[in-house]
């Protein structure tokens, strides 16, 4: 089987995060953590086009 090697080899047993009865793989913790980071980034970061929206509110766009 020919296969180009990945830059990062993830084909080894997972490291885990253990907290009480919670036992999660590092990869899953990263994904879940990223979901929270991306969610808060999405609601906090400014969205482009503020000038166009301000113009629209002033009546420069459609009413």
């Amino acid at each position, binding site marked *: 089987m020919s296969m180009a090697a990945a830059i990062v080899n993830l084909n080894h047993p997972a490291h885990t995060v253990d907290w009480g009865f919670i036992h999660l793989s590092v990869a899953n913790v990263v994904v879940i953590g990223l979901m929270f980071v991306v969610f808060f980034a999405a*609601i906090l970061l400014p969205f482009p086009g503020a000038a166009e929206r301000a113009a629209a509110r002033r009546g420069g766009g459609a*009413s």
Partner: protein
Amino acid sequence: MSAPPTNPSKSWTVKVREKGVEALPPERLLPDGQPTYVASWIYVFGVASIASLIVIIGSGCILALKGPAWWHFTGVGHFFNSIHMWSVELFFFAMVVHLWGKYWMASWRGGRGRVWVTGAITFLVAVPAALTGYVSQQNFDAQWISTQAKDGLNSVGVGAFFNVTNFGQMYSYHILLLPIAVVGLVSAHVLLVRRNGVVPPFEIDTKKAAIAATSPDRGGPPPPPPSTATGAQS
């Protein structure tokens, strides 16, 4: 040159067309403007979910072209399998962020309950769509997941007609039946969003809200957004 209609009001075609155009006139189906409150990055996670689904289906079609064993034996096949797997991760990622955003915006308000319902059902149907993929891999992962998942499904009787250890059945569900269900649900969800418009912000001026609440103009689908084609373009 077509014959004049003899009794147009009984035509099913005319009835479907008129109902469709009434519910979704072209300027509502494909508006070129959005309300000025659509001004947050949280709004892109719906289209990101759709984009992920498009990449899933595209990479899935390539895998289907060569059959289920191909990706085990060629680098190109493994490449497209990897794209398929990562786009599934991105699909669920985008859907979760999208549903979190929509929950905190209470996007079911103003007669938009069906938008939430279709979205939630899409998420729930995506789970078995992914499961059927995992058990169709024809590798150790598929062996393990199928022999484990069978217990949960058998326990509620679903295993009597949905056999996760039957590769042929699972592959059929995965490449045809469940994608049709997901695409159908996503289409209904998006058409409902187009019909109802993006949910307006909560009114934080309570006096204004009270006055508006007594107005006779309550509920129902909003008028289609005006075209901005002659207005300022970004």
